[in-house]
């Protein structure tokens, strides 16, 4: 197990390296001259352009630029926003809590929905119940998040007025108001992921149904709910953990759409605004941070998986 963990951690280095190269190249692949963008398109004074290029280090060879950029990033300096002049690190720190809370909230909601639904579908003896559940989860996978969000706003905020729109107080200042404000966005993000997890829980349960230990548990005279809980779910949920990891990563991406629908000032919305405003250093930082988070979440989930499944642990 230690060897596996070490291997996974070592693999992280090339992956992060490639990500850094891709993110760095982003600045150079985007059409247009960054110096010109910073100066504004009206200003065409060659001397000023050259000065800005020198400030940005754009007159140096590409590998020197990369080295200097990587050095700065590793020391926590993500540069400054071209539009606001503020340090990008500070901007990200302001936005990240919104995105993380949204993603975590959504994972929790997705699991709360998916595990009961998947368990019911995977253990029921009614063909109708299983079929209904299967169709519903397939429908869940077919829903565009931005539309679900808009429909939730229409139904719960505009018509029923159950939930406030566009209010996201800080979690620590007003925990209840915060959880209420984030409920609809989190649910929007949770729906397709809940459907995916529920299908996996079901498939996993169906596959352990015929295992010897389940028969033994039944033969011992254990109640059906105890058999399901202690013997089937415990084993069936192990592979589901990997899916939850993949889902958690998708939530980071999916939150771009949901943040846009609900006007949440998170990292995704920041990235989109950066595209519109041509604030490419900000975009670069957003891509870097979100991708790094995605890689780390996946690593974490893989490690948890190994820990949960003794067959891998002792292999």
């Amino acid at each position, binding site marked *: 197990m230690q060897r596996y963990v070490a291997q996974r951690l070592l693999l992280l280095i090339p992956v992060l390296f490639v990500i850094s190269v891709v993110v760095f190249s982003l600045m150079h692949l985007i059409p247009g001259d960054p110096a010109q963008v910073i100066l504004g398109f009206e200003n065409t004074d060659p001397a000023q352009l050259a000065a800005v290029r020198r400030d940005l280090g754009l007159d140096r060879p590409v590998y020197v630029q990369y080295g200097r950029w990587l050095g700065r990033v590793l020391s926590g300096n993500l540069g400054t926003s071209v539009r606001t002049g503020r340090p990008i690190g500070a901007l990200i720190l302001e936005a990240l809590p919104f995105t993380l809370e949204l993603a975590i909230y959504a994972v929790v909601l997705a699991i709360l929905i998916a595990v009961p639904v998947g368990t019911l579908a995977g253990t029921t003896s009614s063909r109708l119940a299983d079929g209904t559940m299967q169709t519903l989860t397939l429908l869940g996978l*077919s829903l*565009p998040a931005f539309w679900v969000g808009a429909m939730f706003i*229409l139904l719960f905020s505009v018509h029923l007025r159950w939930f406030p729109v566009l209010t996201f107080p800080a979690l620590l200042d007003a925990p209840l108001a915060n959880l209420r404000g984030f409920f609809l966005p989190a649910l929007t993000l949770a729906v397709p992921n809940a459907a995916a997890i529920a299908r996996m829980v079901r498939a996993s349960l169906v596959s352990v149904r015929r295992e010897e230990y389940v028969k033994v548990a039944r033969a011992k005279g254990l109640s059906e709910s105890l058999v399901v809980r202690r013997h089937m779910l415990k084993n069936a949920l192990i592979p589901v953990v990997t899916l939850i990891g993949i889902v958690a990563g998708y939530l980071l991406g999916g939150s771009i759409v949901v943040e846009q629908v609900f006007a949440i000032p998170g990292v995704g919305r920041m990235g989109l605004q950066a595209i519109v405003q041509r604030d490419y250093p900000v975009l670069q930082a957003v891509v870097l941070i979100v991708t790094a988070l995605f890689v780390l979440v996946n690593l974490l989930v893989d490690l948890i998986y190994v820990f949960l499944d003794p067959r891998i642990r002792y292999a």
Partner: protein
Amino acid sequence: MSSSIQESDTPDPKRAPELAVIRPRSLTRIALRSPKAVVGMIVLLLVAGVAVLAPLLATYPATEMHAIDRFAPPGTTYLLGTDFFGRDLFSRILYGYRTSLLVAVLSVAFALVIGSVFGVVAGYTGGAVDSAVMRTMDILFAFPVLLLAITVVVILGAGLFTTVLAIGIVYVPIFARTARGPTLVVREHAYVEAAKAIGLRSFRIIRRHILPNVSTPIFVQATINLATAILFESALSFLGLGTQPPYPSLGLMVSEGRNYLELSPWPAVFPGLAIVLAVLGFNLVGDALQEILDPRLRQTWSAA
């Protein structure tokens, strides 16, 4: 964006004999016995039909504005009502389907061809080539899909074919993995060994022996990815990074409509429902095909 959730692990070549070789043609025949597949196919025929026949079925030109009929409710004049500019929603949805299906089919075709070539060549050649190709695919997988697509759009500039390319690139590793698995299994079979022994060229072996075995899983994967590609295109268009006006796009329609939910919900409701219908069609067919290929997914009631 739950596209690549179904990832196929590399099968153990030593357990090869269980590999179900179902050719696409017989797959279709079996699928006709599944109600899920039949319903899905009917939905898809309907969606594809109205997309193709859009110019004949549309009651108004998709971009024609009717200033006095802004936000008209659904009715006899405007089947599904009108939007902010008084444009007929029904006609716009028909043309929106054209964009959705065009982008979905082209992007999946792109990923299918490139990804399968990578996967088959990597699996058949093995060794360093295999490692190099598959590690590259792993790194592509390391990026969150929507973010990767957005990055491609930012670099190339938004437009129909950028969208195709952005979605296609994201899907390449999925098809590479799907194609590599069965290739590894078939490679070990005696008839491939025999073909090698009599000196057949690799290209011919791949065409005659490998491709027939990988085509079914790839076909199923493509069906599922068509569903997610439609969602993907609509999400990019919703964000303003996909299909650009004046091309009608369902995602863009929802994006425009959601600003006026209190005035009239229909411009946001109907295009969204249209997306759901098309995606559900592909998902129903894909799900039924997956069950046929992997019977373990089916619940059995005999024991219950």
